[in-house]
């Protein structure tokens, strides 16, 4: 048996490793994704003051500090039996929109987009944001930088700090907005709406008008028929910050809808011996292995999961784009993994429109930003991180110290789906042992679409990050190694 190992995955600088096993004909037998897991969070959290959790958990990883911050804050609302004031909820949601703006821009232009804008077969050295700028122009590059930084600034104004917010408190927020700040934010948001529209137009021109790309999106190796999950509002429209968890089935119909507090009755986690990652699945359907279809409890989260799990977007322009996407790709649900990129841009537009509504809300400058807390107990907080449903669950003792903490992060929710997507893409593009840079990139694309986040990707500086592909013979002896430099 031959073994191909892709390690590490470029542009996602964690320690993720893809191993592809070939049979004696050189076709793919199976493929696995392995990631290291950060250990000991529960022990680390034990005995800490509950109100420190929004700050501590926002340091778990630099990717979704705002998502962890508010999942923790919402868990504290619940644990201290307090609801945030109406103004505080709006301030939190506005800040959350800022986070989506910079996060989705970053993924599309820097990480996922280069595969399309520069091309999946382009040399690795070109498939990055610099390649995007070469193709789309310096002016576009400037707009990308500007609007990403607007997202950061909005988050910074509301959160106290751009990257690691300090504003979330049980029952509200620590800081309101004054009229000048409102004006600043409004101006930035207006510009972001135009930029989101521009980004969708760019996707249209470069991806959708290219028949090869459309057939790549629709091709078999990138299809997965799982359940889909995401938070929805009371009209079943996508919501990032609050709502109920809705799961839709392979026909696009509602399977279950539940309160986040009920997650442990609805979701279980399966353990595989080859992976540190746990594989969540729907309890009522059960674990049937790494397979898709109605009888398998595996579900997808993230932009495509959310859009599939909802009936539309709550703002007019995004809703129009939502309808157009489903019409173009053949109705709900869309099973194509590569459609995550399109869904992400529609969400970017929604985030900007929603931010505009919120910043123009009369209540946004209210000083009623905090309610007094009650007695400490147990709390669960759920938000949609940019890459999917994120759950924080804490149990507090009588003094308000953490007794137990459990987190289910977005990439974990997608673990089963990501593993299957990699396997199916590998099976689809590798045959007779032929592997080159472009082929391996098409495997990575299946993975990158999810925008996965390995909390444990360290920031350690090292002397080079090559992409290594090891091929072993059927006695598992290494006979060939491909190497290319990381970016």
């Amino acid at each position, binding site marked *: 048996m031959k073994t191909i190992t892709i390690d590490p995955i470029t542009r*996602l*600088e*964690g320690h993720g490793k893809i191993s592809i096993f070939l049979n004696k004909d050189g076709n793919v037998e199976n493929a696995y994704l392995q990631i*290291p*897991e*950060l*250990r*000991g*969070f529960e*022990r*680390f959290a034990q005995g800490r003051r509950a109100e420190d959790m929004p700050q*501590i958990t926002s*340091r*778990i*990883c*630099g*990717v979704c500090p705002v998502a962890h911050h508010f999942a923790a804050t919402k868990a504290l609302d619940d644990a201290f039996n307090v609801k945030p004031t109406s103004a505080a909820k709006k301030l939190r949601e506005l800040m959350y929109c800022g986070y989506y703006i910079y*996060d989705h821009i*970053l*993924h599309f232009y*820097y*990480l996922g987009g280069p595969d399309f804008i520069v091309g999946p077969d382009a040399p690795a050295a070109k498939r*990055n*944001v*610099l390649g995007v*700028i070469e193709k789309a122009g*310096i002016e576009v*590059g*400037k707009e990308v*930088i500007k609007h*990403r*930084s607007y997202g*950061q600034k909005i988050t910074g104004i509301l959160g106290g700090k*751009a*990257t*690691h917010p300090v504003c979330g408190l049980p029952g509200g927020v620590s800081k309101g907005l004054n009229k000048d700040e409102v004006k600043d934010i409004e101006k930035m948001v207006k510009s972001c709406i135009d930029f989101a529209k521009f980004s969708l137009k760019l996707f249209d021109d470069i991806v959708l008008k290219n028949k090869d790309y459309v057939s790549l999106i629709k091709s078999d190796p990138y299809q997965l028929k799982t359940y889909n999950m995401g938070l929805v509002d009371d009209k079943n429209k996508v919501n990032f910050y609050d709502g109920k968890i809705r799961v839709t089935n392979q026909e696009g119909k509602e399977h279950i809808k539940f309160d986040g507090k009920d997650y442990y009755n609805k979701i279980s986690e399966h353990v595989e011996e080859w992976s540190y990652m746990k594989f969540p699945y729907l309890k009522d359907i059960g674990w049937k292995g790494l397979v898709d279809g109605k009888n398998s409890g595996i579900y997808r989260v993230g932009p495509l999961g959310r859009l599939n799990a909802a009936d539309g977007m709550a703002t007019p322009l995004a809703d129009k784009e939502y309808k157009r996407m489903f019409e173009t790709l053949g109705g709900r649900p869309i099973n194509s993994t590569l459609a995550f990129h399109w869904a992400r841009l529609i969400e970017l537009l929604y985030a900007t429109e929603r931010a505009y509504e919120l910043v123009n809300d009369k209540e946004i400058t209210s000083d009623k930003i905090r309610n007094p807390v009650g007695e400490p107990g147990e709390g669960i907080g759920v938000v949609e991180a940019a890459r999917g449903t994120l759950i924080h669950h804490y149990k507090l003792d009588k003094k308000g110290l953490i007794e137990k903490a459990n987190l289910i992060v977005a990439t974990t929710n997608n673990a089963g789906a990501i593993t299957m997507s990699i396997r199916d893409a590998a099976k689809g593009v590798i045959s007779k042992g032929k592997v080159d840079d472009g082929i391996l990139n098409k495997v990575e694309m299946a993975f990158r679409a999810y*925008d*996965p*986040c*390995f909390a*444990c*990707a*360290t*920031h*350690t*500086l*090292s*002397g*080079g*990050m090559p992409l290594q592909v090891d091929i072993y013979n059927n006695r598992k002896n290494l006979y060939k190694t491909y190497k290319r*430099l*990381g*970016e």
Partner: protein
Amino acid sequence: MKKTIILGVGNPILRDDGVGIHVAEELKKHIKKPGVTIDSAFTGGMNLLDLMVDHDRAILIDAVKLKNKKLGDVGLYGFGELSAFNTCNPHDVSLPQAVDLAKKLGENRIPTDIKVVGINIGELNCEFGEELSSEIEKAIPKAVELVKKEVESDG
């Protein structure tokens, strides 16, 4: 004197990974000069660059992984010497890439002098915690001295 920013980089809750932040905290006791800012960055890539712009000089203090060095070895490196800067953020771009990009887009506020004080931590133990291992703890005074010397070097 060059307008200088000293940044401790790392994740403060990932044990040895956060050593740069510990060094920056210690430096605050030793360096009090106009024109020198000391801060911590629990982030990398684009966000790190945001903190660096509008300075003439940036000194980053960070955990590094170097195979031919002993644990706790401290060294001063030029920006080009370490070829990959992995952020704690797998979603972000690397710092050299962020710098390249910004230059290409005409950003002229990037420090012309960027140096890295690296503390070799070897393989990272992926376990949450705020304490440093003893070899790495011992490296802090050395790193502090190295940064002080570097700051003084152009008075």
